[in-house]
């Protein structure tokens, strides 16, 4: 449905996104994650034809450019802040974009906005505005929905409702591209992950594959920590060190054992440990920042 191919985005002369390529199929829920300034919002804006870019963006085989938005007719979005006019009521804000009054009413009910939907939006709290912004993004049965930090300001109940709605829409074929710093929340909805840093996409995998590949690290304890540090550094093997206990990548464990034994350093412990999604992301970002180097 959406094909992003070798896209480079520029702000002024500065390149913000470098050679981004990925696909989104109907029903996909893609989590777009990365640190502040990584280029998440810029990438979203690029897909919406709001930035200067080269490369190719195709939505349903139709090209999207900075001045060609016809293909975006079936795209809903909430980027940066909800697009809400304070002098209109919530209902009027929805009517402004809605093609079908029934769809509008259904979203008001699903998002529990009935009690305040006829009040002027200037009196809304952050959470109320956020829900209205999400409702606007979901109007008109979109094929693709782009949400930038959708859970901002939402209470627990609203978060659950939004999560449920995302699943319902995805089941009907709507694809989602969602960025969020609340990884635990994102983890509950996404089925594919794109990790971006410094404008480069460093991971683009189905979530199951991602967890399988990156979920485990190994705990390593040796009889000579200092020599182990030297050996790992000399062999450019990535590790973290905390109180004499190393954490190493599973792909390196056989190599590490060979290196250590050749120098008569003996293992006291080498056991797999699970990492949370957050830890994996931090680890991957650290690896990318320092190449295959070290964090101690």
């Amino acid at each position: 449905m959406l094909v992003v191919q070798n896209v480079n985005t520029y702000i002024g002369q500065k390149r913000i996104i470098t050679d981004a390529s990925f696909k989104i199929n109907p029903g996909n829920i893609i989590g777009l994650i990365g640190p502040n300034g990584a280029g998440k919002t810029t990438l979203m804006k690029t897909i919406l034809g709001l930035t200067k870019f080269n490369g190719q963006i195709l939505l349903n085989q139709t090209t999207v450019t900075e001045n060609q938005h016809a293909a975006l007719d079936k795209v809903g979005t909430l980027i940066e802040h909800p697009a809400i006019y304070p002098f209109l009521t919530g209902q009027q804000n929805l009517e402004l974009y809605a093609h079908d009054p029934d769809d509008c009413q259904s979203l008001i009910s699903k998002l529990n906005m009935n009690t305040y939907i006829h009040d002027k939006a200037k009196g809304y709290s952050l959470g109320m505005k956020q829900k209205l912004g999400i409702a606007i993004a979901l109007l008109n049965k979109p094929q693709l929905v782009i949400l930038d930090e959708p859970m901002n300001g939402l209470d627990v109940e609203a978060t659950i409702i939004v999560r449920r709605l995302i699943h319902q829409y995805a089941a009907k074929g709507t694809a989602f591209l969602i960025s969020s710093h609340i990884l635990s929340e994102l983890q509950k909805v996404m089925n594919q992950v794109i990790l971006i840093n410094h404008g480069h996409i460093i991971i683009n995998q189905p979530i199951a594959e991602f967890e399988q590949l990156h979920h485990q690290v190994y705990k390593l304890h040796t009889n000579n920590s200092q020599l182990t540090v030297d050996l790992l550094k000399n062999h450019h093997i990535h590790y973290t060190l905390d109180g004499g206990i190393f954490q190493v990548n599973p792909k390196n464990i056989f190599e590490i054992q060979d290196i250590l034994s050749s120098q008569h350093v003996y293992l006291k412990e080498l056991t797999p440990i699970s990492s949370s999604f957050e830890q994996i992301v931090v680890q991957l970002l650290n690896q990318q920042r320092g190449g295959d180097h070290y964090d101690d």
Partner: protein
Amino acid sequence: MAFSFYQEFYKLCHRKLAWIAPLTLLILMILTDLSIGYNESKLLMATCYNAPDWIMLILVVVGATTFSMEFQNNAILTLLYKSPSKALVYLSKYIVILIYNLWLHLIAMLFTFGLHETSLNQSVSWSTLYRYQQPLWENMLKTSAIDVLTTTFIISLIFLLSCLINSNSIVISVSLLMVFMGQFISDNLLNSEKFTQILRWNPFNMTNLTRQYYNYATYFDTSHLLNQQLLLGTLSYTLLFVIVGYLIFRKKRF
């Protein structure tokens, strides 16, 4: 395209300012009638009780907030990506304000008929000959039509400024300065009597178009342009400001 127009009309119709403006216009027209109506009945009828100046004031405020409300309410991104092109966003806003401008002029004419009927001052017949040996009703129609062109020129300038400056208060202030001080700036430029042949084509001079039409003798000495030349200048600057405004809007990063 139809949906873009619908959205712009929807927003304009739901802004309090758009509905308070005609009421303000009526109050200002009544005040004008009360203050100078006793000896300037014909002039007031021909100029819709000085409506051109009041409409200009209203359009500066409404026009300046047309773009800035999008920037300040974070709605510009949604507006842009939902629209097939940036040109359409710009054009639909421009056309909706033009229609509002026409509507204000029509209302001003209706108010004029009403005020004429209820005026405390001496009643003058609409068929009385006045400027250009034409009846008063024709003077009023033509002055209003000419003023639509002057205000369209001002709207184009406001749109250009709105694309350069995001803050509506600054756009309103700068626009008001240009509209109401522009004439004095132009006067001063032309009073130096150097390069008059070139300087008389300065854009500030075009704000004199309506005033010169209903008071040629006084304003020709100020503008140094014939009515037709002022009209041509106004239309040319309108086109120029629309194009430059759009190009700035097109290049603007949001």
